[in-house]
């Protein structure tokens, strides 16, 4: 069937089978391979994308169910060369090693900060609790999101200097 999904601000119309999963639609049809795909059983969370602003596991959403909704993927985080504070935070705080979990983690961080600009460490840990990272031990992911929270006012010129570790 013919569906239109808004992905990263643009409407994309494609012919898909109803059984086509959102993660395959993004990766195979739209070639947005920033969304990763791991366990395929809704457990690992590497496939997390934002649906109407909130994290969902795209291996457990049908593409047809996403029709008419707004999907945001990691490709949309940066504004041209300007990284999102969450992306910058992952650089500053060494929030990734292999990078497999990173797109999902960053999107969850973005969604959390959009709702709660100053989350506690516990709130950050809760927000990412549905996503596995086999490399970092989570500590640096939490620090990366905290860095982004502190530096949210980047546009207002209060950016923390790169490399500062607090």
């Amino acid at each position, binding site marked *: 069937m013919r569906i239109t999904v808004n992905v990263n601000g643009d409407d994309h119309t494609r012919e898909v089978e109803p059984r086509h*999963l959102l993660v395959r639609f993004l990766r195979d049809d739209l070639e947005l391979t920033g969304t990763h795909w791991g366990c395929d059983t809704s457990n690992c969370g590497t496939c997390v994308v934002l649906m109407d602003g*909130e*994290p969902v596991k795209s291996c457990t959403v049908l593409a047809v*169910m996403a029709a008419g909704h707004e999907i945001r993927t990691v490709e949309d985080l940066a504004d041209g060369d300007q990284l999102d504070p969450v992306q910058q935070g992952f650089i500053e705080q060494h929030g990734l090693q292999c990078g497999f979990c990173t797109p999902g983690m960053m999107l969850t961080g973005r969604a959390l900060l959009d709702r709660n600009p100053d989350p506690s460490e516990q709130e950050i840990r809760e927000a990412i*609790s549905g996503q596995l990272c086999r490399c970092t031990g989570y500590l640096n992911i939490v620090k990366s999101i905290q860095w982004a929270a502190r530096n949210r006012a980047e546009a207002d010129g209060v950016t923390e200097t790169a490399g500062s570790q607090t």
Partner: protein
Amino acid sequence: MQVPASFDYQRAESVDEALELLRRYGEEARVVAGGHSLLPMMKLRLAAPEVLVDINDLHELDHIVLVGDELRVGALTRHRTLLESELVGRYFPIVHDAEKVIADPPVRNRGTIGGSLCQADPSEDLSAVCGALHAHAVIRGAGGERIVSMADFHQGPYETAVGVGEMLTEVRLPVLPGAGSAYEKVERKAGDWAVAAAGVALTLREGRIADAGVGLAAVGAGALNLHAVQTLLNGSEPSEALYEEAGRVASDSCSPVTDGRGSAEYKRHLAGELTRRALRRAVARAGRPIGSTAREA
């Protein structure tokens, strides 16, 4: 790559349209709400419906309202909404206890109360919660609405009172004066299904327990509403000796099986201990003004 078998997809625009589609396709049709139980089963080909009727656009099924002495929760209400609802937390702290440990945030963004109850998996936390609360389910079909108690709603593992051509539209939770409730769950890791869990709801009237409800999850079918424990509790004064006995009866009344999450023996032990803990907290909450549980650690 796991891919479901082929099916037709229909997105309903009204409850009547959903019911019409369910009638038309009969046994071959399934409702899809959050899809977080159904789609994994379809990917494993444990389920292969020919038609999916998507009810996600039926916003009239996404509500939480207090009407008289019951809280009415639409079937499409997501776990996340329940967890964030101040009204739910005020009257039913057991629901917030459970929602904090049901799956993880992205799953809670999709999964619904209706899907949880209709899935009728004996491990489903909200089934034990609704069993303990003596909730009622509103089922709608061609002939109109009928209201069934939770005891009648769950007819066995993966079996409910919802018939072909029908759907669950609302869950009604009774608001009782002097009520207290709590949920205790042991899980292997954050976001996992319960190894075992216990929900208790009750009221205190002149120092004695009344309206007791006890529901256990993940310890076999038939534990969503433990009559033996409820009968023991009703009319009794709260005491450690009573909790001890209630735990023992809960332990004896369930039928856990050994699996990757633990041995039957361990789960039976948990059933008793978690019943005692939930009971203690439910009684403590019953003694407090409504809403004060929100400040608990």
